């Protein structure tokens, strides 16, 4: 940014903020708390990105993939709708309700489509794989349209702006979810655009991320071997696709997947007792290209729950807390205390050690 004499030029002390709330019993709450938490950390972001992921918001359409789609204009919308209709059965589509907010500019058209896949399209392919292929194809090849989330009974709401303004824009106080995550963005070396705001989502995976993945190139080439397309202009996309690959496709337990993404150092593996050592050696050898280097703290959401993870040497902050059936995670303790002043437990998770919260029973 250019500094001139008309505008006072100030340092922008930013660094991204993330926050997450999970009710393990599946009890749904509106967006008020998550908005309050992320808004408290307003100064960590710079207005170039804010967003939320919400799980359990579409119980009426819980068996349909909920596509949240951004369009440049109505022409793009018409073309994509024709494209979608050939590939999916669209049960319902509607504009995502928004309200005018002064600080939110250049918003795309945003609609949601509740879709299912007709068996005839699958040719023995798992349904989720078909959806991934279609979403990847559209996001890579369809100018002027972008699917920002594609899971069942969940949705991503994001854009260019401060998170609390994005929340107002999407009226998130009117949705009820058992799991909320949020992000305030300070784009480091990638552009601030509507699709690049967090959460970055695929199927029901969503990722909010503070930091940068300096192993992006290695992770990207690895993921491309499995058909993922990485064209969102943000390093964070590798995290979402790595979880999809390791947990959904390769069926690794979440704890094992996180050990692939943020593994112990070799010197520490060498000192483990033999069975642990062999397991960690195997993970590092098989999933060496999935190792995420660079500073990160992330909260990953999925229908089953929420995963918090830091890089191996804790170069980004993360706090976690519990209160009764609720698990909180946040970049700052204050981000938790503002909505839960007296947690049962509050702690700083160690580097490379995941905090995993899963819903205990079927969500209504």
């Amino acid at each position, binding site marked *: 940014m250019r500094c001139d004499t008309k505008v006072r030029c100030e340092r922008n002390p930013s660094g991204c903020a993330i926050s997450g709330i999970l009710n393990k019993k599946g009890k749904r709450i509106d967006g008020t708390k998550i908005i309050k938490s992320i808004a408290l950390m307003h100064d960590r972001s710079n207005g170039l990105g804010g967003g939320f992921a919400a799980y359990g918001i579409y119980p009426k359409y819980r068996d349909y993939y909920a596509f949240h789609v951004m369009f440049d204009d109505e022409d793009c919308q018409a073309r994509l709708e024709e494209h979608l209709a050939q590939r999916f059965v669209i049960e319902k589509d509607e504009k995502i309700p928004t309200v005018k907010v002064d600080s939110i500019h250049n918003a795309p058209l945003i609609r949601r489509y509740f879709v299912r896949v007709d068996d005839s399209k699958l040719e023995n392919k798992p349904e989720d794989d078909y959806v991934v292929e279609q979403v990847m194809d559209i996001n890579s090849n369809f100018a002027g349209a972008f699917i920002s989330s594609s899971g069942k009974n969940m949705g991503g709401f994001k854009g260019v702006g401060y998170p609390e303004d994005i929340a107002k824009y999407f009226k998130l106080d009117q949705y009820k979810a058992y799991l909320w995550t949020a992000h305030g963005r300070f784009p480091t070396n990638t552009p601030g655009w509507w699709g690049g705001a967090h959460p970055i989502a695929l199927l029901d995976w969503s990722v909010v991320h503070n930091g940068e993945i300096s192993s992006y190139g290695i992770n990207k080439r690895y993921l491309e071997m499995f058909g993922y397309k990485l064209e969102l202009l943000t390093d964070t996309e590798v995290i979402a696709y790595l979880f999809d690959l390791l947990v959904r496709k390769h069926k690794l337990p979440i704890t094992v997947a996180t050990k692939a993404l943020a593994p112990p150092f070799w010197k520490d593996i060498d000192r483990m007792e033999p069975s642990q050592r062999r397991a960690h050696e195997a993970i590092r050898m098989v999933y060496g290209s999935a190792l995420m280097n660079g500073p990160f703290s992330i909260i990953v959401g999925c229908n089953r729950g929420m995963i918090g993870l830091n890089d191996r040497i804790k170069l980004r902050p993360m706090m976690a807390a519990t209160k009764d059936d609720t698990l909180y995670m946040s970049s*700052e303790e204050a981000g938790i205390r503002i909505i839960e002043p007296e947690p049962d437990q509050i702690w700083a998770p160690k*580097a490379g050690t995941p905090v995993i919260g899963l819903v205990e029973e079927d969500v209504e």
Partner: protein
Amino acid sequence: MVHIDAKEMPYRALNEKIRALAAEGEYSVELDNVCGQKYIGGGLKGKMKIDVRGIPGNDLGIFMDGAEVVVHGNGQDGIGNTMNSGKVVVHGNAGDVIGYAMRGGKVFIKGDVGYRVGIHMKAYGDMVPTIVIGGTASDFLGEYMAGGVMVLLGLTQNSHPQPTGDYVGTGMHGGVIYVRGDIDDYYLGREVIKSEPDAKDIAIISRLVGEYCVTFGCDFDEIMRKPFIKLAPRSHRPYGNLYTS
């Protein structure tokens, strides 16, 4: 004494108010309902005392020059960042990078601290920054430390084999770290040497543990019963030949 209700007050407004009070000669301020406001006590000169109730935001006491800040609860990251003089007391735990590039003054933390505490603190002449931690520390304690004194008591160590994480004193080239208990050599950076404190060291430890006990109300003799180790740099220029040989 002036009370400020900091509820929902933006950090700039809060800090401007504190600075204005300091300029008027006010010597004691109590902040209630603090939640996440950054830079409290930042750049403050003079002898003002600030009591913080709630959770202060990052970089508490940054560039502070003489004031005293007491946090009645947990602190966050970056406490005492580049602090020049004065004192910070935290009656709870604190986060990462406490005392980052600290140049003088004291930081007392009652409980545990996070990663990279004391990173690149430095000293010159009479300016000897000091950090005393009652609990345990995570990895990279004293990373690139160039001067000053750190004391780690490990009072919350419980069943953990040692009071620190890994990579203690990595890149350290000045100053000293005293640790109550022991650290396996495996967890020490290659730039530090572990030794037994001598009488001069014990005098420094006793003074600082005494101040810790007065501040937080605990038993001096009990704490001093367990022996300390001393960590000091092998060299003042550990990387002097890094690119030359």
